[in-house]
């Protein structure tokens, strides 16, 4: 298309194209297979009003340094893969716009409280194992899939009791922000605790006592002090802090 043609198409479409600005990305680099030293690499890249941090990292990978390790998939805050620390706060890179950070320099680091695989990619083994530990499934001997047993009917009010907590995408941001997890390697963590509540609050489930027993140990639910950082970084509105306190209500005798 000629420049004249481009001008005409812009005018006809009525779209106002934002002027391109430049941002400096400071990306954490660390490869344990090479050496144990970590460093920050700086990249200057152009961005638009709608550019996300993930877009910017991919731009760097495409044009400046393809060796940066980053995990991502859906680019729409659905898969929970691109959790990282952006300017000191855990966030999803695909859900964070550069223009909203109000900063000329963006520091991107891997999430804390997760082992680093390389650069921005972290290992989720521990989080998944604590998630499994709380039995994240409906426990009920009468199964919907067994012939002759009844269908589990739920009212909209029944669903409302747990639906918020079922939005968890296992991105790990809550575990990364948690002050207890900053020092306690054995703590079960806000992600797993909120999921324990999700199943306990489900009226189809009969595994409440099992789960309460699992989380009632010296590194269980009582190591949460309701600082609420987990809820502040959750990109899906799960509000793990609420789930944890409601769950603890059962153990303290405030709820049946």
């Amino acid at each position: 298309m000629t420049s004249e043609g481009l001008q005409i198409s812009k005018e006809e479409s009525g779209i106002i194209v934002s002027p391109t600005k430049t941002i400096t990305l400071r990306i954490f680099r660390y490869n344990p297979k090479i050496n144990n030293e970590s460093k920050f690499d700086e990249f200057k890249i152009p961005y638009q009003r709608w550019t996300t941090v993930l877009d910017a990292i991919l731009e760097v990978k495409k044009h400046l340094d393809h060796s940066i390790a980053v995990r991502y998939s859906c680019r729409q805050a659905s898969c929970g893969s691109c959790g990282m620390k952006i300017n000191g706060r855990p966030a999803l890179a695909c859900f964070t716009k550069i223009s909203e950070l109000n900063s000329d320099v963006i520091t991107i680091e891997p999430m804390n409280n997760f082992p680093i695989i390389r650069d921005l990619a972290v290992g989720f083994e521990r989080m998944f194992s604590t998630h499994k530990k709380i039995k994240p499934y409906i426990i009920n001997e009468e199964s919907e899939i067994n012939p002759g047993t009844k269908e589990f009917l739920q009212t909209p009010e029944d669903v409302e009791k747990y639906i918020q907590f079922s939005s968890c995408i296992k991105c790990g941001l809550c575990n990364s922000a948690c002050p207890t997890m900053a020092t306690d390697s054995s703590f079960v963590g806000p992600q797993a605790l909120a999921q324990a509540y999700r199943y306990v609050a489900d009226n189809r489930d009969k595994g409440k006592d099992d789960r309460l027993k699992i989380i009632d140990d010296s590194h269980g639910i009582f190591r949460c002090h309701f600082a609420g950082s987990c809820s502040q970084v959750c990109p899906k509105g799960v509000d793990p802090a609420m789930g944890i306190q409601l769950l603890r209500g059962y153990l303290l005798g405030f709820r049946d």
Partner: protein
Amino acid sequence: MRESVIMKIHYGTALASVALVAVHILFRLTQGFAESLQYESVIANYEFLPYAGMLEIILILLSIHGFNGLRVILLELKQGPTFEKSVSYGCIAAMALIILYGSRTIFMTSMGMV
């Protein structure tokens, strides 16, 4: 002991000590702060057995609450079976020592053994 039981004790001791410490402070304020700290006044307080009993209860409640709080903080700072056991037993020992030391003061003073 299950953690939920320990924490119920933690909350219970907190609430009870808030009420009793308030009475303890009121004793200082109603008598005039400086006057209430004079030797004769303090001895009279100790010899008033209900007050001495209250001091003993405050001593026990706050020792349990305080050292359990310390145990919680320490357990979160470092993990490992040996460390965790040492912290738990260490806090119980410190709690017992403080209770014994404080009880000695309360008992001897209230019995007029000073």
